[in-house]
């Protein structure tokens, strides 16, 4: 009897944990998909007809066992990269990914040089 109770609690705990994880993953995907018919809103924030339909499709894809990346690829294939807030790295947007780092390193070097020069003078 004690064992059965322990097993039941174990099952309930892990089922709710897995459901919570799934819901968190879903929300993360909704937040990263742009509502194409809204002004600056994600699928998660919008109540538009389009957003509601995309939510249903994402739910179905999760149920089918598709990963987050596979869902983004599916959406990007149908609506272009614009639908994803966090753009995927590709030939067209590689500068978008690497330029901030290049500017950071370049800026750092300039500041380093200026500080060193100032110290040399004093």
């Amino acid at each position, binding site marked *: 009897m004690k064992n059965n109770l322990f097993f039941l609690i174990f099952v309930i705990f892990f089922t709710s944990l897995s459901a919570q994880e799934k819901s968190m993953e879903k929300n993360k995907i909704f937040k990263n998909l742009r509502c194409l018919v809204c002004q600056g809103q994600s699928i998660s924030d919008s109540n538009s007809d*389009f957003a509601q339909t995309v939510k249903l499709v994402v739910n179905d894809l999760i149920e089918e066992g598709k990963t987050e990346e596979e869902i983004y690829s599916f959406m990007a294939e149908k*609506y272009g990269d614009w639908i994803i807030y966090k753009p995927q790295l590709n030939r067209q947007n590689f500068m978008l990914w690497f330029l901030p780092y290049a500017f950071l390193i370049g800026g750092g070097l300039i500041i380093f040089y200026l500080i060193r020069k100032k110290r040399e003078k004093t």
Partner: protein
Amino acid sequence: MQKLIKSIITIIFIFIIMIFYISLGKDNSYDTVNLVGKKLDSIEIQSFNNEKFVNTKSFKDNSFTLINFWASWCGPCRAEHPILMNLKESKSLILVGVNFKDKKKNAKNFLEDLGNPYGILLKDESGKKSINFGIYGIPESILLNKELVIIEKFVGPLVEEDYEKILEEIGEK
């Protein structure tokens, strides 16, 4: 070294100005015309009149197919209907109508009032199937060739210009 820093800053400044200049001149209105040239996936959609499902693969039997997404509650769909009725007369084009998030009774009334231009009539009650076609609002139309490659995608109601374009694409002009 100071000269180098100055030139780097100047280059960055020119670069930023260029980005702004190019971006401001760009048309940012979103559409899904990037689907043009891509092959349509195999999608199953329910028939309007019965429980049977039609696979998009079956459109291979037609020389050209125009898939039109419409609903009785959509005003622009009413506006484009005469163009669809004209396209019905075309010999090498089959019109496939996908009734989108609509009530069957209203859809039937709509076709009875304005005429039925569709050779194949399907329905997408939840709107989920339409996501596979890259649809985000109706009316939208997709022109396919025999290989099921998307030749043209029309976002919004079809107008006279689109009608001419379709006839040109299917070689009837």
